């Protein structure tokens, strides 16, 4: 019995070592591919809204840290990154992440894609926990409400119009989910305001195109 157990121990040790070796081997050989799939899954929603506005083939997205003084405006408490969109190595627009705590149930995370002159290309909700059947219509998979932001900018929509129609604004509300609609609209407006304040740093000197506006 004693010798059998000892034999068992040596066998167990060998067995565990070979299993660890196997896992290490798989880990090393898949590490880079996993990194690539992770990046693709992060960028998928970005490319989804960009595809409608820019010729999608030549697009490149580069992350860029958001300065700390703008975190409250975008609803962040820690470092987040915006993405600048390059087409033929020229900056054509950007994707701003934002989050709001004013949803009907918890946090709403969204991204706002805007072209270089501050016009919204698209807004998408990344994460929310709004009521199924009512507030979840902010998500593109259940309703087209979110498309109402397309083409809006600070210059073609006055600041007081960034709310729902019944409060004198220019946006429809989702019936049964006014709080949700309002908080999304307000946060999109804040994201545009951030862009307004930070665009010189992001895109350098104002171009002739934006100067003429």
């Amino acid at each position, binding site marked *: 019995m004693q010798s059998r157990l000892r034999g068992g121990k040596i066998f167990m040790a060998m*067995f565990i070592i070979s299993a660890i070796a196997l*896992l290490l081997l798989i880990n090393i050989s898949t590490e880079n591919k996993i990194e690539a799939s992770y990046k693709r899954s992060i960028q998928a929603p970005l490319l989804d809204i960009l595809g409608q506005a820019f010729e999608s083939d030549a697009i490149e997205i580069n992350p860029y840290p958001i300065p700390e003084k703008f975190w409250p405006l975008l609803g962040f408490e820690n470092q987040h990154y915006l993405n600048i969109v390059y087409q033929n190595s020229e900056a054509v627009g950007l994707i701003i992440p934002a989050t709001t705590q004013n949803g009907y149930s918890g946090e709403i995370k969204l991204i706002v894609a805007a072209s270089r002159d501050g016009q919204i290309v698209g807004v998408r909700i990344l994460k929310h926990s709004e009521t199924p*059947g009512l507030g979840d219509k902010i998500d593109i998979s259940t309703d087209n409400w979110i498309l109402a932001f397309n083409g809006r900018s600070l210059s073609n929509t006055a600041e007081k119009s960034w709310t729902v129609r019944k409060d004198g604004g220019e946006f429809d509300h989702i019936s049964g989910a006014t709080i949700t609609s309002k908080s999304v609209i307000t946060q999109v407006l804040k994201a545009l305001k951030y862009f307004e304040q930070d665009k010189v740093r992001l895109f350098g000197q104002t171009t002739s195109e934006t100067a003429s506006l």
Partner: protein
Amino acid sequence: MKNSSIKTTAIEALWRENPSLTKLMGICPIIAMSSSVSIAIGLGLATLIVIITSNIIASAIRQQLNLATRVPSLIFIIATMVTALEMLMQVSFYGLFELLGVFLPLIVVNQIVLMSAESSASQKSLSNSVLDGFLTGLGFLLVLVLISSIRELIGNGSLFDNMEVLFGSVAKDWVFHPFGNNFQFRLLLMPPGALLIFGVVIAAKNAFSKKPL
């Protein structure tokens, strides 16, 4: 093994003695991961792969195991297989990996897997272990698919939604809505709905086989 006895074993494992329906084994993933057919098939196949591979190893080393080392070794084998599968899945099925979330690593503690490995390690030959693993895994997969198709069909009004996480972009338009686009019965998509449907399935099985639980 003779053909007729394989057939009896198959009926026994898939229907009459299906561990999920008779012993209520492994019902946690069945309750949590059965809101759509695509996720259910994904989890079922992952479990099937883990059962077969760990059965092969358990059967191969069964002479070396004694009473003291058997269960720890089996858990170790299963954990190794699940970890390996987790890494490999991230390479080419990243979307599925994200949808399964914590239930992928939790395959380690699925009783069905340990039960099948235990019986392979104790007496079965290699071929019988593979057969047993295949039938056990298939039984689990079938229960998952059955419950998830009822839930998705009545709860979400769709069938085969989101299949592209399994089969790539060819599966994008496999989804169909037999009751029109707006049909939904949300209760069944929530956890209580899973318990209700699971209960109905067990009741139906008991009524069929005329042998109560």
